[in-house]
């Protein structure tokens, strides 16, 4: 069995994954994407791989390499369509809404006045997010009209074009924590909570993690959320809304888990390796995001 591990740098996560594969008698080829030149239309040696596992630290390099490998017919974890969906908050929102998965209310606008109207309709506080981005960067909670005007103007004036998509999300009055659920092969396998005095609770931003048992409602929600983006291995961020219950905030396609293994007591890299081997041995096909499926009743 030939597995490619796509990387740009080797972090603890990649080390643990490699060790998990090796413990199962499989030795992935570690491929540094920085050293590759791809020739579209000429798959060459790439078709010799049974599976490519994207573990690139650079989201851009990983996303585009998987696009190419997908086009070459190489099964990738995660598949290109899932990465495209998860790496764009608007696409994620569309997939969740189409699949009927509860998620915070969102408005999208492209103009200062329209965006301001969207914020006012959702009410204060509201959250302005870039549709692309990671580790909770450039999230802005706006508490009043003055702040909303300033942030929107800054995005339109100083931001590059991707920041001109004005994505406004309702602020969920959650407890000072959020929930992260790790999903492998469609099944939730581990969960942690991340607590912070700051409203952004990412562990990358200093949130403290604790283990959490996965109840049936949470498990069902996470199965549906992962299926809605067509993801094999995803980390799902949930918010606890006092009115609507659990809401899916976002899905991460290149999950970081080093600090969650001990916290959750679950061998996450071992389960990922097991699933990857099943994908090859059982020929598990790539999922399809809800946004790419034919609408009900379509010919």
């Amino acid at each position, binding site marked *: 069995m030939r597995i490619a591990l796509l*990387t740009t740098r080797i972090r603890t996560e990649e080390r643990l994954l490699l060790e998990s594969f090796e413990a199962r008698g499989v030795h992935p080829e570690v491929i540094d994407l920085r050293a590759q030149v791809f020739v579209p239309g000429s798959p060459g040696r790439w078709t010799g791989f049974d599976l490519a596992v994207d573990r690139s630290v650079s989201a851009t390099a990983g996303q585009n390499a998987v696009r190419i490998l997908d086009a070459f017919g190489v099964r990738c974890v995660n598949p290109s369509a899932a990465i495209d969906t998860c790496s764009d908050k608007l696409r994620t929102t569309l997939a969740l809404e189409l699949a009927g998965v509860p998620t915070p209310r969102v408005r999208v606008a492209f103009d200062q006045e329209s965006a301001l109207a969207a914020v006012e309709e959702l009410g204060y506080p509201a959250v302005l997010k870039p549709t692309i981005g990671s580790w909770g960067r450039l999230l802005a909670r706006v508490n009043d009209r003055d702040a909303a005007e300033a942030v929107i103007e800054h995005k339109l004036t100083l931001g590059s074009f991707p920041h001109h998509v004005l994505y406004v999300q309702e602020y969920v009055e959650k407890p000072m924590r959020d929930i992260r659920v790790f999903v492998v092969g469609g099944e939730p396998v581990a969960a942690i909570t991340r607590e912070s005095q700051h409203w952004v609770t990412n562990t990358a931003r200093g949130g403290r993690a604790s283990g959490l048992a996965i109840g049936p409602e949470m498990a069902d929600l996470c199965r549906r959320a992962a299926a809605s983006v067509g993801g094999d291995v995803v980390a799902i961020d949930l918010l606890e809304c006092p009115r609507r219950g659990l809401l899916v905030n976002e899905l991460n396609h290149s999950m970081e888990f080093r600090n969650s293994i001990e916290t959750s007591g679950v061998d996450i890299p071992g389960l990922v390796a097991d699933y990857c081997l099943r994908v090859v041995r059982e020929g598990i096909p790539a999922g399809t995001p809800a946004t790419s499926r034919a609408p009900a009743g379509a010919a």
Partner: protein
Amino acid sequence: MSSPAATAACPECDGAVVFGRSPMAGEVVRCTDCSAELEVISREPLTLELAPEVEEDWGE
């Protein structure tokens, strides 16, 4: 105590960076003396450089 798999000098503080396992090209490690984040540039000879600053598209 088991012997280290490899040792190299930190390019920032010249302290000893000890690898418990065989280093991998592209591996990111932290110097225990000065806390600098370092990247393995080559394995033979074992060469470390300061890891690049976090870039905008890094991470989940």
